[in-house]
């Protein structure tokens, strides 16, 4: 360390010095380390484990002390993984320590923990749950949800940290939505003991501006201790009473602060909160609106132009209309006639088919009797044929005729006639009887 000339002190001051700050910091550390080793109890918040040390804050309702414990001392405790977490109540042993810092590193104060014991469930979480139940019982979760949210707000208010990433996310969400209206920022600290009243004030101020139609409250992730400002009772009651819808996006989607319960809508990210603030997608709405306009025009035109054309047609050519009707009627008549003809032909065919079937049935029913009659008839025909003189002549016989149509049946008769006619199968021959021989009749002679 280079020796520097000591500057003059402040005029009029009776305090000792001025001393070099490094020497004073070193002295301060010595003094703090002299303080008695004690045990403290409270709740663990903001637990984080680095390569060399374990850091956390020990809190209760009245205050907090930053703590640090060597990593190997912490490992020696043999605690089950996850048993020490935000909200755990512990007893720690140790004493205050001070790191003086240097030209390039910052100073820090912490309670140097040498021993630790898990003491039970966190009280702050229990208080939080009790407050949640109280607010719910008083109906404070409902009013915001009953508010009508505009589909297309012209003016959106946003409460967030001025330098936080949430600010960029809200902007990105609105741009993604295609929204480009008026955005009013109400910046407030979002993490420390001053945060809750400042956020409350920002909300009240935004709600007091008439043109603000919806308010987004956004903050990025962190431990529950970091988000504790959003569990503040006054802030939550204010949100519940505001007549402008509030969309909350605080912490990660696993975190649940009280403002998430009282707000109109709770979103998992600031981007989603921004999109929820504009339920109607402006780009899609524009397309839909153009479609509606086109449909209206088409209906209007059809209604007027269609009727006008009809009227014009009627007034221009009534005769044509009548002719059209006449042609249509004739056509109809032709169709009717053709249809009737078709039906008659079908009926006729059906009747003929039925006749054939009936004849078959009748024949089948009268079969045996007919066959007997036919047999008798055949017998008579045969008998008749047997007596047919033509058939006899054909076998070589001849019929003798007396020339006047009478049949000559004896030689004696032939002898008396002298001239006869002989009929053969193929023709006639005229003959003259020369002589006759009469046979003796044995019976007559007897």
């Amino acid at each position, binding site marked *: 360390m280079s020796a520097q000339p000591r500057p003059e002190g402040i005029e009029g001051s009776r305090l000792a010095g001025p001393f070099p700050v490094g020497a004073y910091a070193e002295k301060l550390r010595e003094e703090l380390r002299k303080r008695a080793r004690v045990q403290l109890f409270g709740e663990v918040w903001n637990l984080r484990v680095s390569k060399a040390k374990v850091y956390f804050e020990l809190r209760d309702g009245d205050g907090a002390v930053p703590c640090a414990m060597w990593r190997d001392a912490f490992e020696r405790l043999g605690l089950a993984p996850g048993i020490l977490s935000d909200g755990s109540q512990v007893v720690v042993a140790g004493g205050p320590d001070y790191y003086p810092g240097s030209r390039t590193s910052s100073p820090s104060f912490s309670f140097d923990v040498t021993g630790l014991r898990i003491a039970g469930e966190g009280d702050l979480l229990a208080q939080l749950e009790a407050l949640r139940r109280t607010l719910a019982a008083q109906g404070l979760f409902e009013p915001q949800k009953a508010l009508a949210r505009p*589909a297309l707000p012209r003016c959106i208010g946003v409460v967030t940290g001025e330098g936080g990433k949430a600010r960029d996310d809200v902007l990105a969400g609105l741009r993604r939505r295609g929204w480009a209206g008026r955005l*009013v920022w109400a910046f407030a600290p979002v993490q420390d003991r001053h945060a809750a009243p400042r956020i409350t004030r920002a909300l009240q101020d935004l709600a007091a501006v008439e043109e603000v139609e919806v308010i987004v409250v956004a903050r990025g992730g962190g431990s529950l201790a970091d988000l504790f400002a959003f569990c503040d009772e006054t802030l939550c009651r204010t949100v519940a009473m505001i007549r402008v819808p509030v969309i909350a996006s605080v912490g990660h989607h696993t975190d649940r602060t009280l403002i998430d319960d009282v707000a109109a809508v709770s979103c998992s990210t600031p981007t989603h909160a921004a999109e929820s603030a504009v339920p109607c997608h402006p780009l899609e709405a524009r397309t839909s609106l153009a479609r*509606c306009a086109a449909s209206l025009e088409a209906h209007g035109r059809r*209604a007027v132009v269609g009727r006008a054309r009809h009227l014009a047609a009627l007034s221009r050519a009534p005769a044509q209309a009548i002719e059209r009707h006449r042609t249509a009627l004739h056509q109809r008549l032709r169709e009717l006639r053709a249809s009737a003809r078709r039906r008659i032909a079908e009926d006729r065919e059906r009747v003929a088919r039925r006749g054939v079937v009936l004849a078959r049935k009748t024949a089948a029913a009268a079969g045996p009797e007919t066959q007997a009659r036919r047999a008798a008839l055949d017998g008579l025909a045969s008998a008749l044929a047997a007596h047919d003189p033509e058939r006899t002549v054909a076998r070589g016989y001849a019929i003798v005729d007396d020339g006047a149509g009478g049949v000559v049946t004896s030689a004696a008769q032939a002898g008396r006639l002298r001239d006869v006619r002989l009929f053969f199968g193929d023709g006639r021959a005229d003959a003259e009887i020369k002589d006759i021989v009469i046979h003796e009749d044995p019976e007559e002679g007897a």
Partner: protein
Amino acid sequence: MSTTETYEAATARLEEIIRRLDSGEAGLRETLELCQEGRGLVEFCAGELDAVGRGLEELRLDELVARLEQRPASAPADA
């Protein structure tokens, strides 16, 4: 058009009008009246969309309050 008309109410009425016209049940007079009302609603909705499409305007709350305080009482709300 009523000054208290909201975008969502306007779009809902517009859809109702289109449904009625599409049904083909409206006579000539009703069709023309509905078309006229529809055109008014389209104009209103287009105006609302234009209002959120002109370009994102970012203001701090104190700037907005100062601007509102400077505005004469008779000035229109969106001047």
